[in-house]
């Protein structure tokens, strides 16, 4: 189960462990079902406890970014660990101004 908080129209999702193709499927469904029902102004993805991520995680981030844009909200990414920054920066996501 996903660890989340919702306050002041900000839905924060505390991601953890390894994000790959196997784990991102469930993450996608759970995050989307929460954003669809709560309609937050901001979806905040907290990467503090993420130990590993590959390009499936980039797909997950880009997909949620699109999803939030469709719902008229914003997305941001916080607490990106050093070793995961390298794969994220390869994608150019930082140019969207979502990494805080």
């Amino acid at each position, binding site marked *: 189960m996903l660890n989340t908080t919702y306050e002041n129209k900000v839905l924060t999702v505390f991601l953890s462990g390894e994000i790959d193709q196997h784990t991102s499927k469930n993450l996608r469904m759970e995050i989307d079902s929460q954003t669809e029902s709560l309609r937050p102004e901001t979806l905040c993805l907290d990467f503090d406890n993420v130990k590993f991520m*590959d390009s499936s995680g980039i797909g997950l981030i880009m997909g949620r970014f699109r999803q939030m844009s469709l719902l008229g909200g914003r997305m941001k990414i916080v607490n990106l660990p050093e070793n995961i920054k390298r794969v994220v920066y390869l994608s150019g996501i930082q140019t969207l101004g979502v990494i805080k």
Partner: protein
Amino acid sequence: MNTLNTMEIKFPSKSINEGFARSVVSSFILQLDPTINELTDIKTAVSEAVTNCIVHGYEDNAGIIYIKGEIREDNLIVFKIRDKGKGIPDIKKAMEPLFTTGGEERAGLGFAVMESFMDKVKVSSKEGKGTTVTLYKKIIRTNYEKP
């Protein structure tokens, strides 16, 4: 070139085995005492190649994935990741950043990650026969002090 150590595994194309493949590969290279960054680079590249076998090669159907690892002279690590799936019709195009046949949820960055995290990436493929990705990386071994 001298090969100092080798390993081989094969496993079914189930997505749960992406993590399994990463663990095996990191255990194998730990003997070279890589830095955390080197370990992350190699784990990530292997994860990309294995995921591609599952998602694209076998298109989520049952198949077998093969990994061969080698440690060669001068701390050169070589991993071959192979599937007997549908193959890649145009390798050059497939390797372009952002190219994907995987739809909305894929970034099309797997090969870009492999190329940026490894020293060299070789891809050979035959339509209907399968794909082999070979990854090369030299471990600088900054952690290691010569005895």
